[in-house]
């Protein structure tokens, strides 16, 4: 049954990703990865991350594994920083997430092109500005998501969701 939930979430995420990318080039899949990190069972998170990123590679016509690589690098960076700054629900914690999301967007700007054609992409100031804005919006989403998640846990006394 949980696998079904993950599959359904994957479909929903792909839909939202497509919608938000067309709207403002906003990446929802990685955002959900960050938001769900340390919140659900690692097996389901792994399944969701691998399946979602491979599907997105197919949709964006990237070389398979590109999205997974960028996601992995960004998360690895987050883990590295979290050794110094704990990933709590406070300003330093969200700052780490902000930096991690920013790095994700930065990598996304040139890594797919680099892998598929071997060419570097020049990054302009305007692009960096856009990345910062998108990272800020992502952090706002993370804050709301964390609040909703903690409320849900309280309501269900942490039994059902903890089992996920």
């Amino acid at each position, binding site marked *: 049954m949980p696998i079904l939930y993950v599959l359904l979430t994957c479909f929903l995420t*792909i*839909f939202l990703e*497509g919608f938000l990318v*067309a709207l403002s080039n906003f990446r929802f899949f990685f955002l959900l990865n960050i938001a769900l*990190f340390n919140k659900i*069972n690692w097996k389901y998170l792994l399944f969701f*991350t691998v399946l979602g990123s*491979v599907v997105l590679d197919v949709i964006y016509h990237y070389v398979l*594994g590109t999205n997974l*690589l960028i996601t992995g690098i960004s998360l690895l960076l987050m883990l590295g920083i979290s050794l110094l700054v704990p990933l709590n629900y406070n300003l330093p914690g969200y700052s780490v997430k902000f930096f991690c999301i920013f790095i994700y967007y930065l990598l996304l700007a040139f890594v797919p092109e680099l892998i598929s054609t071997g060419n570097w992409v020049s990054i302009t100031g305007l692009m960096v500005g856009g990345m910062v804005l998108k990272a800020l919006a992502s952090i706002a989403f993370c804050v709301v998501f964390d609040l909703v998640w903690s409320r849900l846990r309280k309501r269900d006394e942490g039994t059902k969701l903890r089992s996920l």
Partner: protein
Amino acid sequence: MKNNTTKGQNNNIVVYFSLLLAITLLLLDGLSGMKGVRNALSFVFEPTSFQANIAGSKVKEYFQTFVNLGNFRKEFNDLKIASYDKEAQYSNYVILKNENEALKKQIALGNREAKYVLANTLRDDNVDTLAIDQGSESGLQQGDVVTVGNIFVGIVSSVDLKGSTVRLPSDGNSHLEVVVLKVGQDGNVNTNILSSGVVSGSAEGIMIENIAMNSEVVDGDMVYINDSKVGGFYALGYVVALSSNPASTYKTAFVSPILDYDNLMQVFVRVE
């Protein structure tokens, strides 16, 4: 706390495993076996993504309108100015065209021996008179005949240095002798005079009186001015609403003028 730490450590596995799998997938993507995976995933997820993309693009278009509102306003103002400019040019062209047509009419049908002064009509609230922009400076005098081609417009009633007033046939003080001619099937006017009469202005319009009782005048016949004050034949209009009283010795009717006096732009004043 211990549980959290374990979960945290387990989530670290996700990252390491993801990186490992990513590198493996990157290396394997060139193989033909991955093409099948690609096709299968594309078949399942592409429609969802496509529909989401369309929906996103539509919403973006909607919001883009608000973003570009400033540009739209500027463009609208520019277009408005351009439109005014074109309108001014068009008005100028209409005036020239009108003048050209009036001149053509005058050359083709008017009395070439007489001297004519071209005058532009000015806006006047009075429906029975017409203000023109030529006056005594151009040689106009009271009593001069105003025409367009061979169509009668009126008689100059007062003259200033740079403007004049023309009394139209619909004015109550206008009394002119006329003749009524028959209009043939082909639109040509017969030279046989059906009857003579007098036209005078009234509140109802241009009235024609004194049409002989035994004349064969019918609605649609042509009315021509034949008055010593005017000199020469000038078309005025058509007989309409012909009525005869058995007790009376003459018929009465109204004249539907050929020209619409409200829309006249140029007229010719015959100066002696």
